[in-house]
């Protein structure tokens, strides 16, 4: 029995939509709600909108019937799309929020890392923050004292340890924050997307430290979008989708399963996709990648491409349309946005606004890519679809004499010329 470090049984977490969207309420709203909402409900019911009446007090399960076990020493990767319940799972397991249903048990000292530098205060010095942050993360003062030198060494900031951290560069700040967390020394480590911050060097260091921790027989639950890291670090992986556990198995298989599910969704037209986030004031109803050969979804490296996004309706001219291209490992490759860009706009009678983004030379190396699309305004996110479409980049045709070669390593082709003297 005791080689089980984490047991999760039928775990569920329910949120009320009102809580998520308006976050906190004013007393007045609460009071008026008590009086007004029954009438609103009745009115909707009378008009035959039973579903709408129900949605006034809609709640949803961010996590539902999730069960799994993690053995001592296992490194479990948790993958899934945004809003699939990964962070909720972590918040429940770290006891930040309470589950609505089910049960979980963790054996051993637990440390959680949902963010590096929680509780850091800019006015305090590095030394003071190490103590403060350490105690927030659950270390005792003696433990911090014992490990202090190690932490400072790891962070490589010995010279500035008595400087207030507001004078630190962001790199120094992150290194110090991670150094404290890295020296937590727990039996079970619950980690969220902390590696998404910082530069490549920092990320490498974090991953290295995580690998060390894993090799010492600690149990790690690792939530990440970085599929490469999941495959590299984890022995096992689970996939969450709409709050439910859809796959549990070897990390490589989990990643494959996740990619397959993304492909499957990408095949559905954006107008029909139910799995979207944002307020829904504007919606993406069409997304196309049109290559020079006119075949949707096929792009030839080095040639012209047009990304076409249909949005309905666009009420505000400040609406920002953006999309991001990801590779097969879910690493973001590049991002396009209308923010800070003047867009020639023609109001169409149909109410649909067609944003098109013209790329003169599409210079990503051949392979398969995915796109996430988002519509934002000053009020926040209006619509967001993950994996709205997948497309293939093909190598240039052989008959055309290439001006430069397509690299076998890396992801980007830069136009270049060679010279030999």
């Amino acid at each position: 029995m005791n080689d089980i470090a984490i047991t999760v049984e039928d775990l569920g977490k329910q949120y009320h939509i009102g809580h998520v969207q308006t976050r906190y309420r004013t007393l007045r709203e609460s009071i008026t709600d008590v009086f007004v909402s029954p009438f609103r409900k009745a009115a909707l019911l009378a008009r035959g909108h039973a579903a709408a009446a129900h949605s006034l007090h809609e709640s949803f399960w961010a996590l539902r019937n999730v069960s799994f076990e993690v053995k001592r020493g296992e490194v479990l990767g948790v993958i899934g799309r945004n809003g699939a319940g990964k962070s909720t799972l972590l918040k429940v397991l770290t006891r930040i929020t309470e589950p609505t249903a089910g049960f979980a048990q963790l054996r051993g000292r637990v440390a959680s890392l949902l963010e590096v530098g929680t509780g850091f205060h800019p006015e305090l010095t590095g030394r003071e923050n190490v103590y403060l942050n350490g105690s927030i993360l659950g270390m005792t003062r003696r433990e911090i004292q014992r490990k202090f030198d190690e932490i400072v060494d790891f962070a490589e900031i010995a010279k500035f340890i008595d400087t207030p951290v507001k004078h630190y560069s962001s790199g120094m700040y992150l290194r110090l924050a991670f150094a404290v967390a890295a020296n937590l020394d727990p039996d079970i480590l619950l980690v969220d997307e902390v590696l998404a911050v910082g530069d490549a060097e920092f990320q490498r260091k974090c991953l290295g430290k995580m690998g060390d921790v894993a090799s010492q027989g600690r149990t790690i639950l690792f939530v990440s979008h970085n599929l490469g890291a999941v495959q590299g670090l984890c022995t096992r992986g689970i996939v969450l989708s709409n709050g439910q556990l859809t796959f549990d198995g070897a990390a490589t298989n989990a990643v494959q399963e996740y990619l397959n599910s993304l492909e499957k969704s990408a095949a559905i037209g954006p107008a029909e996709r139910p799995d979207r986030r944002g307020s829904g004031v504007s919606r993406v109803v069409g997304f196309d990648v049109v290559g020079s050969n006119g075949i949707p979804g096929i792009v030839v490296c080095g040639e012209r491409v047009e990304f076409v996004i249909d949005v309905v309706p666009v009420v505000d001219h400040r609406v920002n349309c953006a999309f991001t291209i990801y590779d097969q490992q879910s690493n973001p490759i590049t991002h396009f946005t209308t923010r800070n860009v003047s867009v020639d706009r023609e109001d169409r009678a149909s109410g649909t606004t067609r944003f098109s983004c013209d790329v003169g030379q599409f210079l990503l190396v051949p392979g398969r890519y995915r796109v996430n699309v988002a519509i934002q305004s000053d009020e926040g996110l209006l619509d967001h679809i993950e994996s709205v479409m997948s497309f293939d980049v093909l190598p240039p045709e052989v008959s055309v004499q290439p001006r430069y070669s397509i690299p076998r390593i890396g992801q980007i082709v830069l136009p270049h010329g060679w010279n030999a003297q």
Partner: protein
Amino acid sequence: MTNVLPDTVEEPATPGSANGDVPPRPQGAPAALAPRTDAHDVVTRIAPSRGWVSLKLHEVWEYRELLFFLIWRDVKVRYKQTVLGVLWAILQPLSTMVVFSLFFGKLAKMPSDELPYPVFSLAALVPWTFFANALAQSSDSLVGSSNLIKKVYFPRLVIPISASLAGLIDFSIAFVVLMCMMLGFGIAPTWNVIFLPAFLVLAYTTSLGVGLWLSALNVQFRDVKYTIPFMTQLWMFATPIAYPSSLLSEPWRTVYGLNPMAGVVEGFRWALLGSGQAPGPMILISAAVSVCILCSGAFYFRRMEKSFADVV
């Protein structure tokens, strides 16, 4: 009012059973990792709680170092960020005293139990300022610590407790000033001064009790933030600071003790300045009310605690 379902419980398992099956650590692991004898014995259970839950004060006690560090942070940051630093602790009660002495003492000729009016009012203003600041700090503490609440687990009670305790430093400084004032006016503290800590505790429990209520409410309803200054002001005039409670005759004086701060303020005057008679029944009522507020506040806080991270 009972704990229907256990929520999260950290309990030591039987030592023998847990240690036996621990996989051996790989050789060459740093020595610092080795001496953690009890680490594997900790079992954390997570399940939904319903209704009223236990206070789990033992858990707050386990996190006493965090409590200390949070107080230390609050004090340190305050004195680092303000130009006047320590002076603020003195300025607030002193300036109020000057205003009160002018308007109530000189102009309105308010009775002051045969004491010089400045000392009379300052002896009340020092505990009052502590109370009002502790109340304001703890009420705002949860919302102010939202980044912590959303990212790390620890008993949430630690937050308002630490926020209100940080005011003790200011109180001590202001208290020294009060002592100097008394010296200046040639008033020696009576032997009753040994009861002073009890009145301070009473002021603290009242502020924490109200602070617990308001901080938990503040998470749900941000209106609370705006009512605090207003409420504190009304409360101040409902407390015998500018005037003595001896204006009232018994039994009304005892009833006045329903405002716990009336008991505190009269207690301070009696212990320090020897004014009036020992506030017997009045202080008992004050203490009872204060304990009621504290207990109800703590239970309400714990009941709402599970939603903090989702709402704040």
